[in-house]
């Protein structure tokens, strides 16, 4: 049984190599191999449902054991990784066309990223974790830059920020290694339990920077909008749905696997009964919720909009995880799952639209609901889930986070979380409106819905939004069981929601949805009784008597929230990215300047360097080996 853990880790890597080799034979061999191996990984992952395995040693390095493990929390993320990867592989077959771009290594990279993420989730020690973390970074970099010319710059930004984040983690890991000489999670936890507060804080902060870069929490998010929007359509959901969750997973492991709320509370002051470190994380998360929402509202590019939305939603995940209460952490973890589902769905659906229309500029699209009804319906479910409207899944997890914050009386964070959710209405509506509603441009009159290979993953995810929305207990089974292992008090839950007492109110999603369905049916019946309506063309439209012709663009989609933009102008001006760019430019100028002063190309200068060194040495000798 335990050997399967290593097999599972190896499966995607082997599959990737085989897909690469098989692709030389025929492209369908490549597809078959990729689908088979990603499906195998999914099956292997499902085997470990609710299992807890500790310490499968698979090697050792520098005296620290390399360990694999799994527990329900890992399983949750494992499920996200493997299921999403499987669906994305299927979608890729439909979406990535061989004749447009060369795909020699695309599936290899895809499976490698999957394998790396499986490795991260299964890692039982920090070296394994870090190793797979880095592998994930560079393999996903190659996936991002499959998206064409612009994506290269985006990928560059991504990989540089990833490396910075990873090295920040690296320092923390090295500090821990030096202190404990073992990086197995349990040993790390034991070490931190007996360390000074400064050490703990530094460790957590340095690790946290790494996770925050990947999870795109606000001051470190600047790679995400570019990378997510420029990446090829099937890669964006992988990045947004799965990859950034690794940051959340890492944060969870660090905060509750290594530290614990009690421990953190012992060594640092508390605010609102939260250790100050967690409180700061909460604020960062809340800021990214609000600011990213504002930015998402102002986007004109469908994928960029979704990318900013990802920042905002991952803010909820981090906010939930950082609350430190059972309800909040469970909500955060659940939201990670939900966000993977609905954001994956949205990116795939938008990918389907891009596949058919070739553009993701919102103001160029419109009216596609008549042409792509299935994609529309799926995307509708996705945005409802994203906006946190019952009865779909996004609502339940957000509700849990709100209640947890309310219980802790962290009202300002709660207000920000609420605002982000209301703002989500704005941008999701903008998305669906500009793509599917409004006037259909003439050039898209012959657009069809996407092929079944692309429909399938979209609809699987769409069904999952409903399933996890109405039956949150399914996910809670795993989460609550896993959290018990991390020392959390289990929360009470039912299959359909949460009874009174868990939070400050009760929730039973099945009732909401049942009443909604009944009310809907009643209204619909009334509607049908009345005289039938006749379908009119989109050009038969009120325009104060003006005759609308296809040549006339009679649509409102550019600058949809321009008036709102005026309200938040001062906030939009802040521009974290500009600050970064400023410093990078300054560093470049400085580097160039000194280089021109040092490597002048003049031999005399070079020779004088030798003399300077010798002189310094002579001075050192005269001073008896001391320069100061």
């Amino acid at each position, binding site marked *: 049984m335990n050997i399967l853990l290593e097999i599972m880790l190896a499966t995607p890597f082997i599959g990737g190599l085989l897909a690469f080799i098989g692709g030389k034979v025929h492209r369908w061999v490549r597809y078959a191999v990729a689908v088979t191996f990603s499906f195998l990984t999914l099956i292997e992952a499902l085997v470990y449902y609710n299992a807890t395995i500790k310490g499968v040693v698979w090697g050792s390095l520098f005296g620290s054991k390399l360990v694999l493990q799994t527990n329900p929390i890992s399983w949750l993320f494992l499920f996200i990784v493997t299921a999403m990867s499987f669906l994305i592989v299927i979608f890729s077959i439909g979406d990535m066309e061989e004749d447009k771009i060369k795909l020699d290594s695309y599936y290899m990279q895809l499976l490698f990223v999957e394998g790396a993420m499986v490795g991260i989730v299964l890692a039982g020690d920090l070296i394994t974790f870090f190793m797979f973390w880095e592998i994930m970074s560079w393999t996903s970099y190659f996936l991002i830059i499959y998206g064409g010319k612009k994506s290269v710059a985006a990928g560059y930004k991504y990989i540089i920020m990833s490396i910075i984040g990873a090295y920040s983690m690296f320092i923390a890991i090295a500090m821990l290694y030096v202190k404990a000489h073992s990086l197995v999670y349990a040993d790390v936890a034991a070490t931190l339990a007996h360390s000074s507060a400064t050490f703990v804080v530094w460790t957590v902060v340095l690790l946290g920077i790494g996770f925050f870069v990947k999870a795109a929490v606000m001051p470190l998010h600047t790679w995400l909008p570019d990378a997510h929007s420029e990446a090829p359509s099937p890669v964006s959901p992988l990045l947004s749905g799965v990859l950034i969750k690794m940051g959340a997973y890492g944060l969870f492991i660090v905060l509750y696997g290594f530290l614990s709320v009690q421990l953190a509370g012992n060594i640092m002051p508390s605010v609102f009964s939260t250790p100050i470190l967690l409180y700061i994380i909460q604020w960062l998360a809340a800021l990214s919720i609000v600011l990213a929402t504002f930015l998402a509202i102002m986007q004109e590019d469908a994928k960029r909009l979704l990318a900013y939305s990802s920042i905002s939603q991952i803010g909820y995940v981090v906010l939930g995880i950082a609350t430190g209460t059972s309800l909040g952490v469970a909500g955060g973890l659940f939201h990670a799952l939900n966000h993977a589902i609905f954001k994956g769905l949205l990116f795939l659906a938008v990918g389907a639209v891009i596949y058919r229309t070739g553009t993701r500029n919102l103001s160029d699209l419109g009216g596609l*609901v008549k042409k792509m009804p299935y994609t*529309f319906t799926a995307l*509708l479910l996705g945005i*409802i889930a994203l906006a*946190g*409207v*019952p009865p779909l899944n996004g*609502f339940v997890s957000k*509700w849990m986070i*709100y*209640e947890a914050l*309310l219980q802790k*009386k962290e*009202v300002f964070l709660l*207000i920000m979380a*609420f*605002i982000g959710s*209301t*703002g989500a*209405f*704005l941008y999701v*509506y903008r998305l*669906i*409106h500009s793509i599917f*509603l*409004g006037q259909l441009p003439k050039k898209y009159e012959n657009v069809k819905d996407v092929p079944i290979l692309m429909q399938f993953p979209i609809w699987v995810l769409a069904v999952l939004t409903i399933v996890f929305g109405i039956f949150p207990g399914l996910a809670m089974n795993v989460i609550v069981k896993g959290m018990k292992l991390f020392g959390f008090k289990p929360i009470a839950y039912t299959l359909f*929601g949460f009874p009174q007492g868990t939070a*400050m*109110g*009760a*929730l*039973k*999603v099945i*009732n*909401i949805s049942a*009443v*909604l369905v*009944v*009310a*809907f049916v*009643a*209204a*619909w019946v009334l*509607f049908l009784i*009345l*005289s*039938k*309506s*006749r*379908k*009119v063309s989109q050009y038969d*439209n*009120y*325009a104060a008597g003006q005759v609308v012709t296809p040549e006339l663009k009679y*649509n*409102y989609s550019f600058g949809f*929230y321009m*008036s*709102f933009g005026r*309200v938040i102008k001062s906030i939009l001006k802040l521009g974290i990215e500009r600050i970064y760019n400023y410093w990078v430019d300054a560093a470049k100028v400085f580097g160039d300047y000194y280089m021109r002063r040092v490597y002048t190309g003049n031999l005399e200068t070079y020779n004088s360097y030798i003399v300077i060194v010798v002189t310094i040495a002579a001075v050192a000798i005269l001073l008896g080996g001391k320069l100061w």
Partner: protein
Amino acid sequence: MVKMILIAIVAPLLAFSIGLSFMMIKRKVVARIQRRYGPTIIQPIFDIMKLLLKEDNISHGVIFSLGPIIAIAGSILSVFFIPIAGLNMLTGSGDLIALLYIMAIGSLGMALGAGDSANPNASIGISRALTLMFGYDLPLVIIVISVALQYHTTDLSAIVAAQANGHWALWSLPLSAIVGFVVTYGALGEHPFDIITAPHEVATGPMVEYGGKHLGFLMINHAFHLYVEIALFVDLFLGGASNIFIFYIKMFAVFFIMMMFDEVLPRFKIDDAVRFFWKWPTVVALISLIIVLVK
């Protein structure tokens, strides 16, 4: 079981009739404020019936038709989560926070349908509606949080119960109540926040392409909407009621005061409306919230 079904049928009808009665009264009262005679008291019924009985209806597509239906379904759904007169209905299945989002279902459906009408006026109207919603949501959530913290629960029926015997939140949280009153204007799209439908600018906004039975449905939905928003205010701040008449009286009082201001106010520009909501109501609500926190 029978009682449940009975409630399930009666509650929406009750809500509708209350809402409708407000619509009736409003037409008349507004006319009187404007020194007019005004229509007959049951004029809204004529309007709705006429619209429903139109011989010809147009549709721009399935979503266009679904819009009003989802809107009504969402409104009916929210009716069940607002306790009236001792009837708690579904408050055990979804608390105050859930209610805030349940109330959004109808708007979302409406927005979808309006969007499908392929008319830029509708799009502008929706854009304004959502922007305004973003605007008033900030003070709204703050006051909701204040009330929830005041009574240590988010269960609306518990909040109502805690306000029994005249211990209204209006007395304990007067600032929040004032803000809640202002927010209700925004939520109902009344003056000065009727920027969404502003007929002279965007030709009734989202409803621009709706006519016939669709428009009739939207008017029905408006009745529900009136009921939901005002009933929520009454439940939050005026302690609900033990029987339906007192509840109606309280609602009527709120609505009447609203109308008094309503018709004499001009219209905000949309960004000014947001700025307004994010300025004074937010500040006042925050003060109230801090008072609750400190207490």
